C-alpha cells in the first residue's frame, strides 16, 4: 500500500522504530491564535505541537479535529490537516475519519462544553468502542467563546453569566466517567505544566485505543475561580502519589478528588484492549478504506445479483 496512511498491526506499531523529532516550528499554523493573552489554551497548543514534533510525526500524517469554542479554534493554529466541525461533534467526525483512514493519527481537541455538554453522548460511545483517537479537552470549567456561561465542569456554587447566583448542579466528573466508559488511556494535565503535559499527550498519541487527556486550561477572562494560581496550588502529580495506572478502582477514586489536592497525570491505562480498527475485519487488509479502489469485482456483483434471483 503506497497510500498516505498505512495499516499497522499492533505488533508493527509497538516494534516501530522511533522517528527523529521534527522542529516544532514545522507545526506553526496558518493563523495566529486569537485567544486572550494568558489563556490556558496557548499552553495546550504548544504542548500538542511539541508532542507531535517530538514523536517525529509529519504534518500531513496528523488530522486535528475540533468542535466549536475558543479551544476548538486550535486546528487553525497548528500545521496539520484539520477539521473545525460543529459544536459537540468533533468525536463523531473523528470516529468516521479514523475508520475512513486508519493510517492517520487523529487528534481531537475541544472544550469542556463541547465535549461533556453537547458532545456528551459521542464521548461516552467513542470510549466504549475504544476508537484509536487522542482526545484532548481544554477544560476551563466555563463556556469561553459564548462569554462565560456555566459549563458541565463548573463547580457547584460557581457564579457565571447564566448562574449569577451560583450553579446548583453537580459537575460532570470526567476522569471516572472516562474510566467506566471504557477509555483505555485516561490522563489529566495542566497547561501550566508544559513538560508533564507534553509527556501525557505523547503517551496518548502513542497509545493504541481511546486516549483521553483532560487539561486544566484556565479561562482568564470568564473564570475567576479556577485560575492558573488555583491549579498551580492544588495540582499534584500522580506519579508522586504512588498511583498505579493499572488499578481501575484506585483510578476512579483518584479521579474523583477535588480539593486541596487535585491529581494530574496518568490515571488509568489498559494497553491490551484492542482498538476498534483492530477488531473490524474489513480493515484487516487492504489499507485505509479511503484509498481502496471503488470498483466492484465481477464476482461480487454476480454474487449480489444471484441473491436476488
Amino acid at each position: 500500500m503506497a497510500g498516505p496512511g498505512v495499516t499497522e498491526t499492533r505488533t508493527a506499531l509497538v516494534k516501530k522504530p522511533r522517528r527523529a523529532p521534527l522542529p516544532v516550528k514545522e507545526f506553526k499554523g496558518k493563523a495566529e491564535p486569537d485567544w486572550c493573552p494568558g489563556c490556558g489554551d496557548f499552553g495546550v497548543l504548544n504542548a500538542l505541537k511539541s508532542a507531535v514534533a517530538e514523536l517525529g510525526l509529519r504534518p500531513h500524517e496528523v488530522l486535528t479535529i475540533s468542535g466549536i469554542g475558543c479551544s476548538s479554534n486550535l486546528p487553525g493554529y497548528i500545521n496539520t490537516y484539520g477539521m473545525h466541525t460543529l459544536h459537540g461533534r468533533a468525536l463523531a467526525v473523528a470516529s468516521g475519519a479514523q475508520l475512513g483512514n486508519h493510517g492517520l493519527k487523529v487528534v481531537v481537541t475541544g472544550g469542556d462544553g463541547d465535549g461533556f455538554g453537547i458532545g456528551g453522548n459521542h464521548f461516552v460511545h467513542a470510549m466504549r468502542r475504544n476508537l484509536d483517537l487522542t482526545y484532548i479537552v481544554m477544560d476551563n470549567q466555563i463556556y469561553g467563546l459564548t462569554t462565560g456561561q456555566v459549563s458541565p465542569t463548573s463547580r457547584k456554587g460557581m457564579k457565571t453569566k447564566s448562574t449569577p447566583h451560583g450553579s446548583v448542579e453537580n459537575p460532570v466528573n470526567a476522569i471516572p466517567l472516562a474510566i467506566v466508559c471504557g477509555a483505555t488511556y485516561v490522563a489529566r494535565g495542566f497547561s501550566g505544566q508544559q513538560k508533564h503535559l507534553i509527556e501525557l499527550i505523547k503517551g496518548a498519541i502513542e497509545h493504541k485505543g481511546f486516549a483521553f487527556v483532560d487539561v486544566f486550561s484556565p479561562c482568564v477572562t470568564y473564570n475567576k475561580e479556577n485560575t492558573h494560581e488555583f491549579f498551580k496550588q492544588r495540582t499534584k502529580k500522580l506519579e508522586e502519589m504512588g498511583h498505579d495506572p493499572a488499578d481501575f478502582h484506585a483510578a476512579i477514586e483518584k479521579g474523583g478528588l477535588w480539593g486541596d489536592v487535585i491529581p494530574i497525570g496518568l490515571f488509568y491505562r489498559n494497553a491490551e484492549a484492542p482498538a476498534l480498527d483492530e477488531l473490524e475485519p474489513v480493515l484487516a487488509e487492504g489499507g485505509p478504506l479511503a484509498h481502496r479502489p471503488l470498483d466492484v469485482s465481477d464476482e461480487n456483483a454476480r454474487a449480489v445479483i444471484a441473491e436476488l434471483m
Partner: protein
Amino acid sequence: MAQTDFSVGIGGAAGQGVATPGTLLAKLFVRRGLHINAYNAYQSIIRGGHTFLTIRTGEAPVRCMGDELEMLIPLNQDTMDRHVRRMRPGSAVLFDGGKVKPEGAADGVQLCPLPLAQLAKSPLHYNTAAVAAVLRLVGVECRPFEEMLAEQFERKGDAVVAENVAVARAGYEYAGAHFRPYPFALPDTGKPLAVATGNECLAMGGVAAGVKFYCAYPMSPSTGVLMWMARHARQLGIMVRQVEDEIAVINMAIGAAHTGCRAMCATSGGGFALMTEALGAAAMMEIPVVCINVQRAGPATGVPTKTEQGDLWQVLGAGQGDYPRLIAAPISIADCFHTIPQIFNLADRFQCPGIVLADLLESEGFSSLDPAELDFNPPRDRGELIGLDGSPVPSGEGYERYRQTESGVAPRALPGTPGHAHVVATDEHDERGVLISDEFTDPHKRQAIMERRQRKMDGALPLIDPPRVAGAADAEVTLVGWGSTWGVIAEAVEKLEREGIRANHLQVKWMVPLHVEAIQQALAKARKIVIVENNYSGQFARYLRSETGLVADAHIRKYDGEPFLPHHVVEGVRKVLAGKTKKYVPVHEIRV
C-alpha cells in the same frame, strides 16, 4: 393475446408470516421472467393488527400494485371479512378451510378452502401448501417450486426437503382436484429477472457507487439499508457501523467522506431532522456525503410503517442559512439503485451533500429488476481530488483549498497528502480555510464566498436530465408528480386513456437543482395541470410554485398513510375535469 396482469393479496395479523408466501411467489414469478411489483401494508405492531401484501405480476414491467386483485389469500378471518367484498367475479379466494369462513363473497368469486391441517402435518408448512395451490390455479407447474424448496432447505437435510416437497405436491394436487384454474396461465418469458426491495436497491446502489463507509441508526422504513449493508459488509469490503444516534451517523459519515471514502447513511424523517445541522456543515466544509431520507407518515413519530411524501420542505429547509445541496427523489424501486451513483458523482464533483428522498412505498415494496440493468460499475466521477491513492501529488506550493474559481469548485486534498495540510471549517473561512468569522470579518469577502459556494449548483444543473412530459402532447390534462408516484400516475394515465380522457404525465425526480426552465417549457402548453402527491399540504406544488411560478389547476392528495392506487388518481382527474373540485382527496378502501 392480452398481457397477463395478475395480482394476489395475502393478508393476516402481524406475526402470521404474510411475507413468507409473498416472497416465495415473488421469486417464482421473477424466475419465470415475469415482472412484479409488490407492496406490504404492515404495522409497527409485532403481533396482531392487520397486514396485507399485494403482489402483481405480468410480462410487461409492473409499475405499481394496481387496483384489483385476482386472488385473495386471507390468513385469518379478519382479512377475509375486510377484503372479500372487494373481490370481483372471476377472482378466487384461497384460505384455510378449517379456520376461516368466507362470507359476503360476490357471485362468481371462486371460494377455495384448503384443508391445510390435512395437507400438512405442521402449521410451519401451511404456506408451502398454499403457494403450491396458487401455482396450480395460475397454470404453473410445481417443479420450480419444488426446486426452490430444495434450495431453501438443502442445509437441513434430505428429509426436510422431502417433507416440504411432499406438502407442496399435496397442495398442488388438492387444488387441481377441487378448484377451477384461472382461464389463463402465467407464462415463462425465458428471461429470468431479479427481485429486490427499494431498501436493497438503495444499498446496492451504494455498492455500485463505491461506498466504503456506511453508518446508520435504525429507523423504519430505512433500516433495510443498514441490514443489507451489514450482511454484505465483509464480502464487499464496506465499513458498516450502527452508532449511538443520527447526529453521530451523519457526522461520522462526514468524517469518513473527508478522508476520501464515499460515505453514505440512511434514515427516516425524524432521524433526518437530527442530521440537518451537519448537512449544512458538510456544505460549508465542502465535503461530499450522501444521506438518504426514506420518508414515512409524519409528523413526529407519526405512523412509522406507513408511507408519505411529507419531508420535501424538511429537506429543502434542512439546516440554517443558504447552502448548496443536491436533492433527488427516485421515481421507482429500480431508480433507487440508479440514483445513488448519480448523486455521488454530483456530490463528489461539486463537493456538497446529496440527499435522496425515497419513501416507504419504495423502500419496503419490492419490484422485479432486469439483472442486466444492475450495473455495479457505472461511471464514477470523483471530482477534483488530490492525493487519492495512485494519483500523482503536486507539490502543494500555494495550495488553497477554497480557491475562488469560476465553477465554484477547487481541488480537494485528502488528509494524509504531503504538502497540502489545511483546515476545513464550519465557520466562514477564506481561500486558505482560515476563519474570517473569528479572525476578521470582511463583508466583501463573505459575499464573494457565499456566491462561490452557491455558484456550484449552476454547474450541476446541466448534468442532470431535465424532466420530460410522457404521453400525448395535446392531452386534456397533465398529471405532475414527483418521486415514488411515477408508477401509479403512469398507470392512471393509461386507465384514463381507456376511459377516453387524454392525459399526459410529468414526473420530477431532481428537486435541487430544479430544471426550472425545462419544467416551465414542458408545462407551458398544458391545458390543465393536476399535481398528485402523497402529503397534506401540497409540499411539491408549493415548491414548484415558489421556483417556477407555475400554479396548478387542481391537486390530488393523500395523507392517510397508504399509497395512491391508480383508480384514486383516475377518480380525482374525473372529478377535476367535471369541475367538481380543485383538491381531491381519495378515501382509501380499507385494506389495512
